[in-house]
């Protein structure tokens, strides 16, 4: 008997405008010890499915199912009180996405751990405490006994997520549901947490439901995967089956839209799924994906396509018969998709250069703590040549955003020079500087003024600089909107009427309307859905070729870097630890941190598991950086010298690396 049996799960939420159907008929079974990955974009209903399983759907929601059984016992008929007493926290546990806010700030870690056990089992406080310590150690929190008395705010994000996992395990659950457990964490920490989850699942014999939007993560960690779109599973099967032979057009579209090194050449256009997710308000007639599907036929729009079986445990919901679907799958997969519109090599005089830039902030800890100095940028030197795309890669707290602001002229560094085309950036973002260099930001929701129309927003640079007559400005706005793929009808819309992708396009239009030479992109696609990311990346590549743009790309997403960048600079705790051409750095990374980053990046590799990036647990505190080489406490190849002296920069042509493993005479081998 399957551990978890779900048939035709539906969730309906009455809203002022009608009834929302975020989950529209989900079926699956979960065996003991199995990992099911539910993958989908935002709005697909995956989180709500998990919440419905636990009985945690919002109060106004109506949850219905043909069957919802845990180990044969029907969960649907249980009252909330019975669910809380018998199922939640004891037989089924859940961990969530935001470790920073998921723990109660006024109670100690110890109390939040032990209360879980004391709620469900008749154990003494001592027994609960002992188990808490054991579990904390097992999930890798150092100094477990001491941590019990600490409060959540005293732990880092990764540590808090480990605490959440320990909390979930207190009562030996049979099913663990992890809803985007690592999305809010850095790549290197993400890898560690995912490895931990995989290990724990084996050890505790649990079934794991992993919910994520990240195809790479799910391909490596899950045994079986279900692809969710608009409230239903469009395809299920083992990970290998689904990723190697995607039978549903949506799955194919998703896989085609992520940059996959080895499958797609850098600079090539990524596949894109046109359109947006349909509204879930009211009933949807026919296939929910039909409006965006290149294979759509009339039948698709009239009736819901049948659920087709394609082998044991393999299913997909489409009008295409299995043979046809398999043929379409092999069309897309395999073979290198070629080529980019040529990426200009560097070589000319640098367009933008930063030399020895130091920037620190005075930070007050708490309301009465002493003022400490945060060295956000610590001696950074880099140069961007005309026509190239330099990617600055790093995790949170490395200082890349501060660096971006310094380069834009918005922050004046305490030391160091920034030169734009040879001229120093004195006194900040002057008009002259602004005309040559413009930013694009990460969050499409906060980068546009909600009280202004699109036309006003895109036209603003021209207004501020007094360029052209009003008619000329209008014409320019129209031209820009066409260039970035926004329909003229949207000219007088407000940002809240647009989707994330549309807003990001508007932000790009605003950035290029004055025809700058350099565009600084700060995580331009991180806040967008997978299928929209590819649209924006394609757009950026097209614009690069058409307008001869130079990009400074700031990101943590290595797949995007490999796809778009000509050169890479890796940043850690305010310093640049390695630079080089993208090809070199990815093929043969020199700095141990770069190596760890690359090892942690989840590419789509079914069944590969998550490699150990060997980074250990001492998370860096930017306010108290380690002495010597800043990376040495986490470095798997640290030598005694590393804790004493900061490593020098070893240059080798265009590349450089900051590590004691390399010397001037031996810049490559180590």
């Amino acid at each position: 008997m399957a551990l978890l049996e779900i048939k035709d799960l539906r969730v309906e939420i009455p809203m002022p405008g009608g009834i929302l159907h975020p989950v529209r008929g989900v079926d699956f079974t979960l065996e003991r010890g199995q990992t099911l990955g539910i993958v989908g974009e935002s709005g697909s209903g995956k989180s709500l499915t998990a919440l419905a399983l636990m009985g945690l759907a919002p109060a106004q929601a109506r949850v219905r199912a043909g069957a919802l059984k845990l180990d044969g016992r029907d969960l649907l008929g249980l009252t909330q009180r019975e669910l809380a007493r018998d199922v939640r926290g004891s037989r089924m546990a859940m961990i969530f996405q935001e470790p920073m806010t998921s723990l109660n700030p006024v109670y100690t870690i110890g109390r939040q751990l032990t209360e879980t056990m004391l709620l469900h089992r008749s154990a003494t406080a001592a027994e609960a405490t002992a188990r808490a310590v054991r579990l904390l150690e097992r999930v890798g929190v150092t100094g477990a006994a001491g941590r019990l008395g600490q409060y959540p705010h005293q732990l880092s994000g990764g540590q808090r997520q480990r605490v959440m996992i320990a909390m979930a395990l207190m009562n030996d659950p049979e099913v663990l549901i992890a809803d985007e457990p690592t999305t809010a964490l850095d790549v290197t920490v993400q890898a560690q947490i995912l490895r931990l989850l995989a290990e724990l699942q084996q050890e505790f014999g649990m079934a794991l439901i992993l919910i994520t939007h990240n195809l790479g993560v799910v391909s490596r960690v899950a045994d079986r995967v279900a692809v969710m779109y608009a409230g239903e599973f469009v395809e299920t099967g083992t990970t290998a089956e689904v990723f190697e032979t995607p039978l549903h057009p949506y799955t194919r579209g998703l896989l085609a839209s992520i940059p996959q090194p080895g499958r797609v050449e850098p600079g090539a256009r990524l596949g894109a799924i046109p359109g947006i997710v349909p509204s879930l308000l009211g009933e949807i007639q026919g296939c929910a994906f039909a409006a965006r599907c290149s294979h759509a036929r009339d039948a698709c729009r009239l009736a819901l396509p049948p659920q087709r079986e394609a082998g044991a445990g393999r299913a997909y919901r489409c009008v295409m018969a299995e043979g046809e679907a398999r043929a379409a799958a092999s069309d897309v997969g395999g073979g290198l998709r070629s080529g980019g519109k040529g990426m200009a090599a560097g070589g000319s005089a640098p367009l933008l250069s930063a030399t020895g830039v130091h920037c620190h902030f005075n930070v007050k800890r708490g309301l009465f703590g002493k003022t400490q100095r945060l060295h956000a940028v610590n001696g950074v030197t880099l140069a961007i040549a005309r026509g190239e795309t330099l990617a600055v890669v790093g995790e949170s707290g490395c200082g890349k955003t501060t660096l971006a602001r310094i380069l834009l002229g918005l922050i004046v560094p305490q030391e160091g020079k920034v030169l734009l085309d040879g001229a120093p950036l004195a006194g900040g973002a002057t008009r002259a500087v602004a005309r040559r260099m413009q930013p694009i930001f990460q969050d499409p929701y906060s980068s546009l003024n909600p009280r202004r129309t699109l036309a006003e927003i895109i036209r603003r640079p021209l207004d501020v600089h007094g360029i052209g007559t009003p008619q000329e400005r209008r014409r320019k706005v129209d031209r820009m909107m066409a260039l970035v793929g926004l329909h003229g009808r949207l000219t007088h819309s407000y940002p809240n009427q647009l989707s994330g992708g549309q807003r990001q396009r508007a932000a790009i239009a605003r950035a290029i309307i004055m025809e700058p030479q350099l565009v600084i992109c700060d995580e331009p696609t991180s806040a967008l859905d997978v299928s929209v990311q590819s649209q924006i990346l394609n757009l950026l590549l097209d614009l690069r070729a058409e307008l001869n743009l130079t990009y400074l790309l700031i990101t943590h997403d290595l797949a995007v870097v490999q796809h778009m960048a000509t050169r890479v600079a890796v940043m850690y705790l305010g310093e640049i630890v390695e630079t080089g051409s993208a090809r070199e750095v990815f093929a043969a990374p020199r700095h141990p941190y770069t190596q760890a980053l690359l090892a942690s990046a989840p590419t789509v590799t079914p069944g590969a598991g998550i490699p150990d990036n060997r980074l250990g647990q001492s998370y860096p505190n930017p306010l108290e950086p380690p002495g010597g080489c800043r990376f040495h406490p986490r470095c798997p190849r640290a030598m005694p010298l590393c804790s004493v002296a900061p490593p020098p920069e070893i240059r080798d042509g265009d590349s450089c690396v900051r590590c004691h493993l390399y010397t001037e005479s031996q810049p490559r081998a180590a």
Partner: protein
Amino acid sequence: MPVESSAAGITPWRAARRRMLRHQGFLIGVALLLAIAAMALAAPWLAPHDPYAQDLANRLVPPAWDAKGSWEHVFGTDHLGRDYLSRLMYGARISLLVGLGAASIGCVIGVTLGVAAGYFGGRIDQVVSYLLTCQLALPGLLLAMSLVFLIGPSVAVVIGIIGVLHWTYFLVVTRTVTMQIRELDYVTAARALGATRWQVISHEVLPNLANQIIVIFTLEVGVAIIAEASLSFLGVGVPAPNPSWGLLIAEGKNSMFFRPWLVVVPGLFLFALVIAINLMGDGLRDVTAPENRN
């Protein structure tokens, strides 16, 4: 390559208007407010008598529903023979004038300080926060009473004093919201354009404050109206013979056991006016930022 062509939903203005027309509280408030404002504006034509005209022969005539009353004076007359209904109607003018005037003064002071403190931070913020703390520590009512009395009671003085003592709510909200807006990317984008500080504030920050300022303004009008009524009741507000509702209550207090309407009726008018304003203000808040509700 036009790819994206559909815009979901309708403009925020139309959405807001639709919500306004559906919001019961807002509609009731607006209706009531318009009625009282109309009465105030049209008082010179609607009032049956001159509110200042004394008629000592006809003092304390009871209202029309009493046996000894007459329809000549629907609500009777006061202790100096003045027609009560006319005084009530003219009283609305005073309340509305003081309310709008004082709230405007408070708004200008509070918003200016709030935007300055929120946007520039640093020393300016420290000074403004200090000013705020001092202002909060002051016993406002006492100070208002003293100042009005010492300077000499008049409508203008009352407006000025109440306005100058009622800017804290504007400041607190404006400052907090400005600080939030300052961190948003569209402000950074404007700065990266080379826009001057004033351009950024006027083009990016203020439009996003407007909704909240309007809501607070509306509520502060109500606060100012009650403040004026309280001051006048205590004798240190709008001076006699002006027909301020607070004064009417004070004047009627002495005979309230036998003629309770002298106290109840002006109070009801005050209550109705302020409730109308508050309903409208709450409705505005719900309508312009429905996400802040629940």
